[in-house]
């Protein structure tokens, strides 16, 4: 939060330095940069425009979903259904376009489905007060199953008359050779950061995660905010689903399986606190980027992909213990 930045200005001789070093996203960014520099020298293939194009594009899908997940995590919740929702939204888009409807109808149906699922999650969590873990675990199962129902568990790879538009949407590079998904991700990240820090909605998201009881007694519409938050999370999964469909050019019913854990890992590595009250849009991007760089580098260095989980897992644990390590080194 910029609040901490201003806070630092008054106290420290090197305010920018102390602000930066207190940010988890800064250290993760540093890790990403160090890894990139190292890989540029250690391999011939990392710093090629082709590989960088791939790396930046590959993490956008996780990053877009991680933006929505970060907002949920800031309120102190969690959304386990995002991987399945992404699959269902991709499948709805694919099936609708396969039936000969144009791309706009497909996208509307797909994102409409996402919002509806988010609404159901949110209502159950906010009004019936069922724990988010349970509600979204149930939705994880339901959405995946509905995707199978919608496609009869087949692979859809023909998208009707607007097929080319869809493939360009996800696979093209409209601006300066940057993959389209990267542009979407950056725009959505800026939007998320703006909403979190400059709108009343964003302030309420942090307040709910900080002290839900306080938010209630001060008149914050806690329930409505929670419903909105789960709708945003599902919508981000839906958007990622649409983009990923355009990139892959085919949809299977195991798309996004296990993605929820990768997304949560990205958010947490980027500094979101699962206890609520803390998180940034920038952190979501950086966390996602780190996971992708690890994945990519293992491949390039010739290390077995089986090690990927070990590295990502270590970073999750390191990220969560970040505050303690920092406080240990610099006692207050």
């Amino acid at each position, binding site marked *: 939060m910029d*609040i901490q930045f201003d*806070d630092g200005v*008054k106290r420290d001789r090197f305010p920018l330095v102390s602000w930066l070093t207190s940010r988890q996203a800064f250290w993760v960014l540093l890790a990403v940069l160090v890894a990139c520099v190292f890989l540029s020298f250690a391999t011939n293939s990392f710093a090629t425009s082709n590989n960088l194009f791939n790396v930046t594009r590959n993490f956008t899908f996780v990053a877009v979903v991680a933006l929505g997940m970060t907002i949920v995590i800031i309120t102190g919740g969690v959304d386990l259904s995002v991987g399945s929702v992404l699959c269902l939204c991709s499948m709805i888009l694919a099936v609708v376009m396969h039936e000969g409807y144009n791309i706009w109808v497909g996208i509307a149906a797909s994102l409409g489905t996402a919002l509806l699922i988010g609404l159901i999650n949110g209502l159950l969590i906010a009004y019936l007060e069922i724990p988010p873990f349970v509600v979204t675990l149930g939705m994880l199962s339901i959405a995946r199953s509905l995707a199978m129902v919608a496609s009869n568990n087949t692979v859809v790879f023909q998208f009707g008359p607007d097929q080319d538009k869809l493939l360009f949407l996800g696979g093209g590079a409209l601006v300066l050779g940057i993959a389209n998904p990267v542009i979407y991700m950056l725009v959505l990240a800026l939007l998320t950061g703006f909403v979190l*820090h400059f709108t*009343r909605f964003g302030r309420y998201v942090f*307040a709910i995660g900080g002290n839900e009881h*306080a938010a209630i007694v*001060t008149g914050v519409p806690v329930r409505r905010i929670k419903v909105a938050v789960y709708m945003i999370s599902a919508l981000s999964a839906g958007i990622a689903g649409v983009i990923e469909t355009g990139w892959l050019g085919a949809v299977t019913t195991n798309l996004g399986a296990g993605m929820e854990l990768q997304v949560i890992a990205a958010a947490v590595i980027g500094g979101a606190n699962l206890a609520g009250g803390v998180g940034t849009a920038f952190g979501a991007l950086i966390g996602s980027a780190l996971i992708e760089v690890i994945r990519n580098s293992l491949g390039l260095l010739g290390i077995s992909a089986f090690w990927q989980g070990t590295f990502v897992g270590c970073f999750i644990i390191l990220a969560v213990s970040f505050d303690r390590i920092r406080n240990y080194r610099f006692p207050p």
Partner: protein
Amino acid sequence: MALLELKNVSKHFGAIHALNDVSLALEAGEVVGLMGDNGAGKSTLAKIVAGNFRPSHGEIRMEGRELVMHRPVEARQHGIEIVHQDLALCDNLSAAANVFLGRELRRGVGPFKVLDYSTMYRRAGQIFAELRSETRPRDLVRQMSGGQRQAVAIARTRIADARIILMDEPTAAISVRQVAEVLNLIRLLRDRGIAIVLISHRMPDVFSIANRVVVLRRGRKVADKDVASSSPEEVTGLITGAIEHAL
């Protein structure tokens, strides 16, 4: 005419009579200590005044006009504020963000409104200066002392120009020096003509700052007298029931 008047207020929860036929008048610039053992009805009374509960019987009048409140927001609109025992602060937000929580100032055009950080910082700073608190608007509440946190919670009541403030155990869990700080804050508010209901277990606080002391026992009012004509011993007796009624 009293600023706030409770007339024969009762509150029943099923068979439990939490509050029985309690009448109470509050004048501007007055501090009333509300005392009683656990379960005597203090918090029920506070919740009725704060709009959380509606009384089963009786009525609440503000300057002679009857108040019917369904939600805490309505009490706020009438100038009644409550400072909760746990202060209801968000540790992860700045002092200014907490002061304006639920009442954020925004600027912009039409539906495009953004938080007005600069005005909120400035206004919060003014309120802290007015409360003679060293709290800085941009500091995170997480880093604050008990007294500073209390100042943040009290500052909240100042942005709405409250006329009646209910304070629930404001000195329960803080150090001796901070207690003095909080009592000074209460004096400042009193001198501005605000009526204060101080719910407390701490006899010295009530006797040092309140004009009147009201004692509840088992949902009934058993005493309502000037502090000057009472004593801690008498009040203790009234709370425990050793003394049946105040003279």
